[in-house]
């Protein structure tokens, strides 16, 4: 599914919280259709990196080139709003809107951000819910769904914006073990459609199977990256070797 067309280039991205340096000059690029998995120990900066990509955390320095548009810490808020609308994000804790039904969760942003008509948004929601296997839950509220179902709705909600890239921030970490599979399956299906994805996960089998590239991060740096075979089977850096061995 991977092509050679670069859609996201990250240059010297850094993030500090006070004196605490969380990301140190990270540079990488992502091509259209590529599935990138980021692994690494807790506190390595993986989640912060993901959150900086869509500016939920404003980076301290560096630049992002997304489809030719340049974003940096000085970018105006309305520019960032438009940018974020093109990048889907799935959170560890689902973050569905509890006061809205499944349908309303999915149609809210398309209707209010993209100004899509109610009928069109509804039709798209129907289709997305079918894809994630939750058509019958369309009028349910989030509290009536299991964690796995909530996360599938959250994926559908992000996809409703027709994003060019999807970010997954430990999407299965908060789930009971028996519910992890259903969410990973939806993510796998999505990867097969050619969606560009950046995934932070602890599910190594999934990473091996689905990713085009694995990035190993530690202490705010990209320590090593390569195909899943390279990183998992013949890691070069000592820190990567230690991490892989402990799995």
């Amino acid at each position, binding site marked *: 599914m991977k092509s050679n067309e670069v859609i996201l280039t990250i240059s010297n991205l850094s993030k500090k919280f006070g004196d605490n340096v969380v990301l140190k000059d990270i540079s990488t690029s992502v091509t259209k259709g590529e599935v990138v998995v980021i692994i690494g120990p807790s506190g390595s900066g993986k989640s912060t990196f993901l959150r900086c990509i*869509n500016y939920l955390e404003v980076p301290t320095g560096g630049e992002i080139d997304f489809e030719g548009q340049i974003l940096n810490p000085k970018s105006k808020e309305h520019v960032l709003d438009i940018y974020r609308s093109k990048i889907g994000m799935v959170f560890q804790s689902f*973050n569905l809107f509890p006061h809205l039904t499944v349908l309303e969760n999915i149609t809210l942003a398309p209707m209010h951000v993209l100004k899509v008509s109610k009928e069109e948004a509804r039709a798209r929601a129907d289709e997305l819910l079918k894809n994630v296997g939750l058509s019958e839950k369309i009028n349910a509220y989030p509290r009536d769904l299991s964690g796995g179902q909530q996360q599938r709705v959250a994926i559908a909600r992000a996809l409703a914006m027709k994003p060019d890239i999807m970010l997954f921030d430990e999407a299965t970490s908060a789930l009971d073990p028996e519910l992890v599979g259903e969410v990973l399956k939806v993510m796998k299906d999505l990867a097969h459609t050619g969606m560009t994805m950046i995934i932070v996960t602890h599910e190594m089998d999934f990473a091996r199977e689905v990713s085009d590239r694995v990035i190993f991060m530690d202490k705010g740096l990209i320590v090593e990256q390569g195909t899943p075979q390279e990183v998992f089977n013949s890691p070069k850096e000592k820190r990567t070797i230690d991490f892989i061995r402990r799995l």
Partner: protein
Amino acid sequence: MEAELGFWAFSKMIVLPRLMEGMGVTLKLTFISGILGLILGMFLALMRISQFKILNWVSILYITLFRGTPLLLQILFIYFALPTILEAYQINMILDSFSAGILALSLNSAAYLAEIFRAGILSIHKGQTEAARALGLSRHQTMYKIIIPQTYRRIIPPVVNELSALTKETSLVSVISLGELLYMTQRLGSRYLRVWEVYIWAALGYLIIVMILSFIASRIEKRLELKGGV
């Protein structure tokens, strides 16, 4: 002649007709200042959490001032002192006791309601804002479509508390001779020299208003509970 009337006859013929009149004024005071207080309180809460520092400070100053001084003083100040101050600036404003009462009560309750709203907004999990912003919703849309609707059920109990307090505090307006429930009660009591028969009805009057308020609130709470339980 009235002195010989029994409790029920005295109540029915003399007390209740006057007190109903006073209760009408109390209801109007409560209702109008409640609505105005809710609106102003919402503005103050939004100012308090705004990204513009100057708005924060205006809101903090306002809330500190109105929560830090007695309501009775505020009523007297608005009724007696405000016109004098304005006069010095060539503004002639005649404030009748009803308008002064409404003004004092709404300005005062707004300060308390603002803190309730602010606490409600801050109690919504950060993940809700993040999810909304990640979808491309603006700061404004996130606040009005995602955050504020989720605060409704949480803030109903403290808001009802505040509105009940407001109902009872309307009685303070009697000091500027506004014919609300307590003022009418005091007048009747001293005119007929039959105190307990009069005050007991006044107490009942306030009790009824507060109970109706609580009833409406619990209905709203139940209805919201059906909608997603937040």
